[in-house]
């Protein structure tokens, strides 16, 4: 695109450029009208799609969640908030509480294990050495694999008597062997291990991208001042990586709240139904579809949505705030 003659912003009339840049000869009213045509014309497709595929289904979910409904015929048995707070509602079901706890474990595990691990690897891989590209790729490969593939792969590795047990035996750690996917007290930690293995690469690639934005002048100046490698990382690279880390925390938290695929594939329905590995998302599908409690499933979906939405709002308000504020000032580079 080489055209430069149209200064009218394509991103909407709201941030319209100064009037003197506009082609002359229009009255003020005509300009206003035109501005509104632009706003409506350009945003209509997005608004339509968003309404049809996001807002309307959300509305329907809230509506359905107030009914007892098996999915046959339209919902007729109105139950108010029973699916949420009634004696058989989600918040009174110990298995749903287990799901909340499991989601909590996965959030905490993601933030406390994946983050530091990825940061450490990123700091190492940010140095120049032979084969760096190969190492970067190796850590990133799990993230590219499909969740279902990862789930099946680890299931085969972790079943009793399979590869994981053989490796532990040959390391003399045989007494640690347990039913990685069957021991109800262990399964959630197995899941966390698989998720960490898979998603550390994602954090890593974000951190490496952030590090490439750290200006060489600053690190060079530090080196001239006699700072060690560790001092440089500690006082320059990591602080300058702050906004990247905060964005990753946000993505990781929302991902952990909604985690489904790996757990669905790698842990069996029995283990999930006993509350050992289920998350809110798997609980929703198990009950909504497989038990054909569509109204109840919708209620769980609404709970999951509200929790994710609140988490996102709070995080943006208190943590991401300075990054968003910073975006308004001029860049310092």
């Amino acid at each position, binding site marked *: 695109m080489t055209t430069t003659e149209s200064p009218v912003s394509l991103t909407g009339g709201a941030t319209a450029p100064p009037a003197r840049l506009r082609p002359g000869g229009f009255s003020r009213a005509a300009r206003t009208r035109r501005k509104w045509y632009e706003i409506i014309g350009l945003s209509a497709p997005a608004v339509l799609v968003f309404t*049809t*595929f*996001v807002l*309307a*289904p*959300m509305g*329907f*979910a809230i509506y*359905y969640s107030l009914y*007892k409904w*098996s*999915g*046959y*015929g*339209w919902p007729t048995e109105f139950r108010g908030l029973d*699916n949420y707070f009634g*004696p*058989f509602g989600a918040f009174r079901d110990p298995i749903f509480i287990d799901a909340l706890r499991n989601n909590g474990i996965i959030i905490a595990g993601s933030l406390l294990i994946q983050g530091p691990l990825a940061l450490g690897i990123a700091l190492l891989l940010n140095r120049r050495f032979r084969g760096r590209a190969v190492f970067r790729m190796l850590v990133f490969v799990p993230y590219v694999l499909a969740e279902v593939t990862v789930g099946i792969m680890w299931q*085969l590795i972790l*079943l*009793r008597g399979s590869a994981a047990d053989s490796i532990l035996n040959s390391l003399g750690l045989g007494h640690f062997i347990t*039913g990685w*996917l*069957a*021991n*109800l007290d262990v399964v959630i930690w197995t899941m966390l291990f698989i998720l960490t293995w898979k998603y550390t690469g994602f954090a890593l690639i974000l951190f490496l991208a952030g590090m490439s934005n750290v200006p060489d002048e600053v690190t060079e100046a530090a080196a001239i001042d006699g700072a060690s490698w560790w001092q440089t990382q500690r006082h320059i690279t990591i602080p300058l990586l702050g906004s990247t880390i905060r964005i990753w925390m946000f993505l990781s938290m929302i991902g952990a709240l909604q985690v489904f695929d790996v757990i669905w594939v790698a*842990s*069996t*329905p*029995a*283990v999930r*139904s*006993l509350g050992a590995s289920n998350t809110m998302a798997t609980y*929703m599908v198990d*009950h*909504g*579809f*497989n*038990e*054909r*409690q*569509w*109204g*109840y*499933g*919708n209620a769980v*979906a*609404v709970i999951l*949505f509200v929790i994710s939405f609140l988490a996102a709002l709070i995080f943006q308000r208190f943590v991401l705030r300075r990054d968003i504020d910073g975006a308004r000032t001029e860049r310092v580079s």
Partner: protein
Amino acid sequence: MTKTRRTGAVLALVAITSLVASACSSSSSGNQSKNDLYKNPVTLTWWHNSNQAGPLQTYWQKVANDFHALHPTVTIKISAIETNDLQRNRIPAALLSNNPPDIFQAWGGGETVEQVQAGYLKDITAETKNEVANIGAASKIWAVDGKQYGLPFDFGIEGFWYNKDLFARAGISAPPATLDDLNAAVTKLKAIGVTPISVGAGDKWPAGHWWYNFTVRECSADALSNAATKQNFDDPCFLKAGQDLQTFLATKPFQPDFLATSGQVGATSSAGQLANGKAAMELMGAWDGGVMGTLTPNRQEPSFLSWFPFPSVPGAGGSQTTMMGGGDGFACSKNAPAECVEFLKYIVSPEVEKGFAATGSGIPVAKGAETGLTDPVMQTIAQATQQAGGVELWLDTQFGATAGTAMNDAIVAIFAGKGNPQGVVDALKKATAR
């Protein structure tokens, strides 16, 4: 009458649950007169669950082609869909829309009752009198209040699939006839270092079947029928069934980590363990041989397999000859054309059923079709099905998806050592509350 089936604007809003709204209805109608039959071109959509390439999938295609050759006005369009997806998601969503498949898989029992109550199924009582007479008692599972809404093509009882060679090595001379015999066999099999019984408890229902069978042994026919029709689980026999199961579990007859074992997927599944000589027995329906045939290295059903029915339980108060069983059938949706019923009748005709029997995928229900069974184990099961003192449908199918799943969850809890017999009864009592 022109047959134009229009789907119209199908707006699928899939975010949390799937809402399928169809803007205009299909124009096919169910009230053609007999004279119209085969006069106008019709396309029947047929949804079945044989989604894995194999003899049955090939056979259903042949059945559709043959019917088209017999009646050139009828074209049949098949969709083969994975069974759980088909049953739990696809059929309910399609029935909710105005454009359901014409003929689709129906498992009978509580689910058929629900579909009939919602007005989704075609009443085929008048057209299928001969077929029902030929099939006999099994067809009742697809009937509601004396009216027929579907027909089975396959029905068999479950029992123990076992490895003859391992039994011989362990010194077990005859298949166990009582629970005491079974316990003795478990001890002998442990002594030669094999897993006595494999169970796919990870999938929940294979564990559930153990409780069902103990329930059939403990409960009178009245207690069972009260449970199925009135949701009355007050009879102490339901508690006793759970206690029997707990006692049996205490003998540790199953493979370790059974909570992580799936029923039918891969060589590590419970069926795979039996098929590959790791386990000596599995309690499973008549389809198990076909499943095992896909799980061995050479893709052949092992020749060491044999079968015996669920043993009697000494001292139990129910029938000792009634067997747990189930089958597969098809139903026509309410507005399907009359040709749908004709096609359904064709599927359950002795000739077509004989061909079905020859695929080794199940036990045919039409009299005269059992001669098509070539596999000796299947012949044994067919014979045992006919000789059974009574047949009870899988309890989870009978009670419907909601109560059935809650029951299975509670049974799995017993397997995991986290539940108790009372838990199953409680789960059944409160399951219908959501």
